[in-house]
């Protein structure tokens, strides 16, 4: 099975977000970028499927700035066979534009399975898998927490409101990976050395029209500092009264 893993670099989750002077982007000073946490599950699953079948290939791809090479190198060190950087100068947030460009590229390579993360924790879109699948004509299961492959058919489990869905899917397919799917491995020294000899391709992304345009990025209004109503169980009546006054009860 030839697997494409879509990855994205995102600001580390504990980063304090500052808005840049243009009012539309984030101020990158002091921001540490890391591999999107959900993409680690996608990469790990790809490596496990390749190990299970003892055949096929794992290619990682990102559309993003040149600095994304760091995350691609990390993926190679963990075991991916090949990395592709479709370079841009911008922060990719537009779902339609990114999905169209990724789908166009995927059509040019051998691929029966696309794995991606549930969502990129910068734009928090959670839309890539479905969008790609519809453009590629592939089957699709999103937010998968358990995945098995037998005789070329996937069985995937995903949480829905109050229940778990079991979905069977043919290949070719796009699957988006949730937390709980697996425990990602990290790169070891051997992997890091081996990565240096693996194919790395860089070419400009072929971006089409935008679907949406950012007009503003703002920080949320700080919640008014809370009111401490007291200490211990004695404060319960005051809490009930406050909640009733707010019509929260």
């Amino acid at each position: 099975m030839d697997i494409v893993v879509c990855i994205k670099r995102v600001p580390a989750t504990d980063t304090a977000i500052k808005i840049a002077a243009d009012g539309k982007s984030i101020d990158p000073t002091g921001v540490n970028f890391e591999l999107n946490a959900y993409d680690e599950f996608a990469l790990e699953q790809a490596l496990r499927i390749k190990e299970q079948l003892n055949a096929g290939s794992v290619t990682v791809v990102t559309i993003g700035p040149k600095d994304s090479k760091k995350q691609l190198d990390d993926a190679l060190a963990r075991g991916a066979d090949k990395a592709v950087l479709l370079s841009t100068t911008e922060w990719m947030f537009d779902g339609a534009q990114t999905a169209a460009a990724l789908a166009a590229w995927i059509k040019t390579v051998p691929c029966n399975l696309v794995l991606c993360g549930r969502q990129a924790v910068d734009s928090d879109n959670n839309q890539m898998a479905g969008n790609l699948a519809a453009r590629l004509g592939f089957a699709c299961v999103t937010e998968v927490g358990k995945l098995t492959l037998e005789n070329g058919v996937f069985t995937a489990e995903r949480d829905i409101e109050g229940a778990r869905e079991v979905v069977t899917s043919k290949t070719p397919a796009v699957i988006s990976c949730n937390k709980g799917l697996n425990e990602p491995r990290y790169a070891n020294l051997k992997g890091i050395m081996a990565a240096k000899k693996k194919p790395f391709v860089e070419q400009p992304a072929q971006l089409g029209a935008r679907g949406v345009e950012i007009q503003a990025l703002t920080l949320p209004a700080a919640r008014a500092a809370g009111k401490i109503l007291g200490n211990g169980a004695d404060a319960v009546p005051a809490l009930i009264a406050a909640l009733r006054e707010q019509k929260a009860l």
Partner: protein
Amino acid sequence: MSNIVVIAEARGGALKRPSLEAVTAALGLAKQTGGKVIAVLCGSGLDAACAELGKSGANQIVAIDGASFANYSGDAWAKAIADQCKAHAATAVLMAHTAMGKDLLPRVSAQLDGSVLTDTVELAFAGGAFTAKKPVFAGKATMTAKATKLPFCATLRPNNFAPATGGSGAEVQKVAAPGGDLLAVVKEIIAAAGGKTPLQEAKVVVAGGRGLKEAQHFKLIEDLAAAFGPGVAAVGASRAVVDAGWRPHGEQVGQTGKVVSPPLYFAIGISGAIQHLAGMRTARTIVAINKDADAPIFKVADFGIVGDAFEVVPALTKAIQALVAGK
């Protein structure tokens, strides 16, 4: 004519409440565009859901009904819905940001080669363009974006719009669900034990953290949730207790868990790490119970009690029980 399509969701024959919230948002947009609101839904046996949608104020209902659609299949449903969007010349397509909405709407947007924005909290049509606000960076910032490609397809965060109730029946058009080859199909739905209220739909979320010290102490949290009566409250958890194996991942609230926006949220023995806040900071009223007066959670809570959860929570549970019994 600039019509708005709402993709409604029925499960087990019943309409999901967030679908009515999406109708509210669509009616607001349609007032500006001068178009109609068309609610489209898929499934098998949709009459009850259509009747309920009829009361929402949507101008028209399209039910794509048939045995082949008895189980959800994103690929087949997206195609059938996209065809309806085209037939009704939709310039915007809305759906609630539920498990199905997140899965289905992006596919519809691709079928229509439209734009897509998910988890929106505000929508507008002004100066000839759709605009939307949505939280980004785990709620650390809000993005305002303008659609530059139509149709504009968006999911809406639940609990953010009032459910629509302003109608007295609408024309229902029945469309036979197409048969044919399904690429992926739901084989089975395993209900969570005890018919629990889904976390994202609960009116009250009672969340517990490491301050509870041990898995079995979550009984305190469960009891408080139960005190609100059946179907009202759900239990949530911080990542620390999910990682410790005390609670299932499905209950985790936060950046790598679920984002909830209930009218009332209790954070009990939860410190208020930024990744946790990402999942609950838009709750309408936040109550924190923590023995550390300096815990960051008190900075976002509307009301706080400084104290030992083991003492405060049982007292609170009793008070809520009394209140609910008296109603």
